[in-house]
């Protein structure tokens, strides 16, 4: 039976839509503002009243960034560190998660609790100890310092994420490999990894994002311009005497693009169904 819509129902629907549009505006406007400002001149950005659309559309901010080797280096650094950390995190987390998911060993429960508990420590409290360690090991202002530090933050969550994913995969598959003549290693690489792509991609995206956006440790553990990453690079555009807002916005746009691309590429892996047809 079709339900009759009352006036009250309609009012609720209208109110809901107004609230949603307001929410959308609130979420999307900063992104729009970043985009539009990146195509304005710095003078126009400071104009009052502010212009919603660029009056004089210009690519000068992008040219300034893409033409400056120092700024391009920020991008390279961000890519290199984020990529290295992602690869290492996924590799280590996968092996650790396979262990947690498939084997029983002494101290498994305690180790699991320890990993979870690391998530409760605010990263900023570790800044000074990390700084001390990095200096002691003479790796200050190096990729190694950033990569090792980031690994400490990405690994626990990645292990938990991957363990959760592997736990959803039927153990019969590992046993089928064992009966077919393979070892646990064979099962992991030939069967578990190929069907864990959604889990691996989710972990990779999470790790990449965390590294790409990281500011505090990158600021503290690096010093030279050649080691700075994009978030620090954006901050460096705020000089003592000048604020290059259009360049900051252009750099933010360029910095966001890889993430957008990663999301678009990874999207299809988030869909369920990798194990369809395996069991039952």
């Amino acid at each position, binding site marked *: 039976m079709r339900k009759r819509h009352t006036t009250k129902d309609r009012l609720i629907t209208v109110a809901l839509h107004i609230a949603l549009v307001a929410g959308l505006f609130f979420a999307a406007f900063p992104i729009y503002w970043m985009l539009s400002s990146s195509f304005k001149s710095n003078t126009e950005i400071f104009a009052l009243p502010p212009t919603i659309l660029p009056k004089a559309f210009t690519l000068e901010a992008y040219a300034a960034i893409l033409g400056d080797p120092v700024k391009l280096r920020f991008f390279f650094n961000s890519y290199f560190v984020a990529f290295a950390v992602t690869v290492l995190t996924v590799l280590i987390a996968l092996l650790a998660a396979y262990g947690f998911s498939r084997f029983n060993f002494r101290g498994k429960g305690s180790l699991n609790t320890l990993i979870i508990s690391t998530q409760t420590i605010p990263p900023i409290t570790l800044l000074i100890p990390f700084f001390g360690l990095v200096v002691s090991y003479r790796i200050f202002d190096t990729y190694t310092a950033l990569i090792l530090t980031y690994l400490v933050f990405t690994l626990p969550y990645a292990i938990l994420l991957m363990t959760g994913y592997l736990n959803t995969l039927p153990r019969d598959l590992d046993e089928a490999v*064992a*009966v077919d003549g393979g070892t646990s290693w064979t099962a992991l690489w*030939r069967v578990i990894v190929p*069907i864990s792509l959604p889990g691996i991609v989710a972990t990779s995206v999470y790790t990449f994002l965390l590294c790409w956006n990281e500011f505090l440790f990158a600021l503290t553990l690096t010093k030279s311009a050649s080691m700075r990453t994009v978030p620090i690079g954006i901050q460096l555009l705020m000089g003592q005497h000048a604020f290059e807002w259009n360049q900051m916005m252009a750099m933010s746009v360029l910095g966001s693009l890889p993430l957008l691309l990663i999301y678009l590429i990874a999207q299809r892996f988030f869909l369920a169904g990798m194990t369809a*047809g395996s069991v039952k």
Partner: protein
Amino acid sequence: MAEVILENICKTYGNNFHAIDQLNLSVEDGEFLILVGPSGCGKSTALRMIAGLEDVTSGSLRIGGVDVVDMPPKDRDIAMVFQSYALYPHMTVSENIAFSMRLAGKPKAERKKRVDEIAKTLQLTSLLDSKPANLSGGQRQRVAMGRAMVREPAAFLMDEPLSNLDAKLRVQMRAEITSLQKQLGVTTIYVTHDQTEAMTMGDRVAVLKGGVLQQVDTPKRLYESPVNAFVAGFIGSPSMNLFEATLMGDELTVGAFAIRLQNAAFGRRPGLKSYAGRKVVFGIRPEDLYDSNLESGRKYQTIPAKVTSIEELGSEHIVHLSIDAARVDSGDPDAVQDFGMASNAVAKFEPVSAVRSGSEIRLALDDTKLHFFDPETHLAI
């Protein structure tokens, strides 16, 4: 091909739970042995121990004369079909079947030849490039079989491979697996909780309960001569009716009626005489109970019964009855509780039977088909 011998096999878990207790079983070369029992009886554990997927707590396990207790699954020369099929979802049918050969380092040409042979036998040729997700339940089951067959193992281990199929397909696959096993002649151990599969597929059937082997015999002998009330109740569908009675002379006194026993009954079971004047458990299968109004039932003695409900299956009527007797539990935890407050017995009548629900009838029983068990031990007399 090889014989599989289990000697005093035990499996105890950390919490001191005995999943398998002193299991002795000898499966001959080429034999099709069914391991059957209710849920939690240890049948899958036993199979997994043979496969090497579960550690053996104690005892000896030999496949083809080789002690395999400490061997990993890959060295046992066995192939297994899992209840869930466990097909590799990212591989095609062809890759699934050939996977073990690939791991063994067999050349591509040899793999292809063998896969083609298997696919032909299992009618999978047109599906070789499909992924498991695109197959029906029956096709997946065949791929799982193919994966086991490809290696020409010493023994096949099958863990309830038909339980995920619908009833019709199950009947078809039952016949296919049986004929395939005969054709290949490979020693096969097949786990099921479905006693119809047990009765129709195997050369011999091993009945387990609570981790203890109850009886190993041919389906016919299990049906005709169960060693105890559990086996009697477990084998056969619907289950055997078990009641308590007192043996008075040549009569079984049951509540308000008595069943006369012929001399032959005592001749076949000399031990029965020692129960004179004592309680005894007797059993009768639903197919040995008749509608006294029909020709088939006229020659037998009758007892009073009340019809509580009828399931008309077309080829037969399953008639639920209430008789004035104390029912005995066979000890099968999975037994269907079709005995409500009103009914305590089941009979299979011919479809021409005109009995109606709620009517008082005379129930004919073939007293030569009675089974007797000790009321304490439940062992057959």
